[in-house]
């Protein structure tokens, strides 16, 4: 089902919040909304452009959403301001250098991550935080 496998890094969520959001939505609710949008868009793009994953990003008046999906159906989403160039490469690096290293190869991680369990581990979050800060400079 749609929200079974989502996990969000809350540090990033707090720093890059689309403007105009007044209601007190929790990080988990945000994650569910984003997943729903991304899932539908990705399917629609596949029907339009074929099976190769062509959904790269979308932009509204207030934010840009960057998307990257792995061969293992992991979905990485990054929300930024509208002026940022495409960060698909960044998401790929996050996957290869942070997710694979600190989640997949973590002996304390469960094999599957239902409910996002075992993804928000300290080394992953710290690595993610410093990586994003490096890029922002």
């Amino acid at each position, binding site marked *: 089902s749609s929200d079974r496998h989502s996990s969000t890094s809350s540090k990033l969520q707090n720093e890059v919040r689309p403007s105009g959001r007044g209601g007190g939505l929790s990080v988990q609710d945000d994650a569910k909304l984003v997943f729903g949008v991304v899932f539908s868009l990705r399917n629609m793009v596949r029907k339009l452009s074929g099976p190769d994953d062509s959904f790269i990003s979308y932009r509204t008046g207030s934010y840009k959403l960057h998307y990257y999906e792995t061969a293992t159906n992991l979905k990485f989403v990054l929300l930024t301001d509208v002026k940022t160039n495409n960060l698909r490469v960044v998401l790929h690096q996050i996957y290869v250098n942070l997710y694979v*290293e*600190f989640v997949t*190869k*973590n*002996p*304390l991680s469960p094999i599957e991550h239902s409910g996002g369990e*075992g993804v*928000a*581990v*300290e*080394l*992953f979050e710290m690595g993610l935080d410093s990586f994003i800060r490096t890029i922002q400079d």
Partner: protein
Amino acid sequence: MSFEPPLPPFNASDPHATFLNSTCLDLLLIELVPLAHRLSHQLAEAPNDALRAGVVDDEEDEVREAVFYRLEMLGYRVGYGLVERFSRDRPRMNDTLDVIKFVCKDLWTIVFRKQIDNLKTNHRGVYVLTDNSFRPFSRMSAETGGNAVARAQPFLWFPCGIVRGALANMGVNASVQAETTELPSATFKIETLTKPVV
């Protein structure tokens, strides 16, 4: 994982060269601990469940002992064989301290790709080896407050066995214990049980 060819002096087109992807080995070794847990739990549940009904704590201890025994004996066999294979180019070692140094430098480099950072001894058969960035702990992390240090403990039992097996095959009969107080460091305590080999 990488599909890139190995760097020189290793040559992938050499028909006698054999390579192993290190990520494959890492993932296999990571799975050793949950496997030992599952096996021990299954074996503990097998006989009379009725008899064990009220004895939960003892059973947990028993299972933990069984997991320790399983992993440590696996390590013993590995350490014993490793030393046979890798000490062939070394001259015969004169005393226990030489053997311990071999463990700290050569064995640690072969198994954990670095040397021991600190060696202490009381000169009466007790040696304390400290590794400040123990390789199996390099990717070990939990969610904040997730008690990573306690959960890391079983991952030291297989390495303890490796050390004990290596020592045994070099003529040093010893007990080996390990613990961690802060990831990613680990401390191994070797207590020799016989007089030093002269």
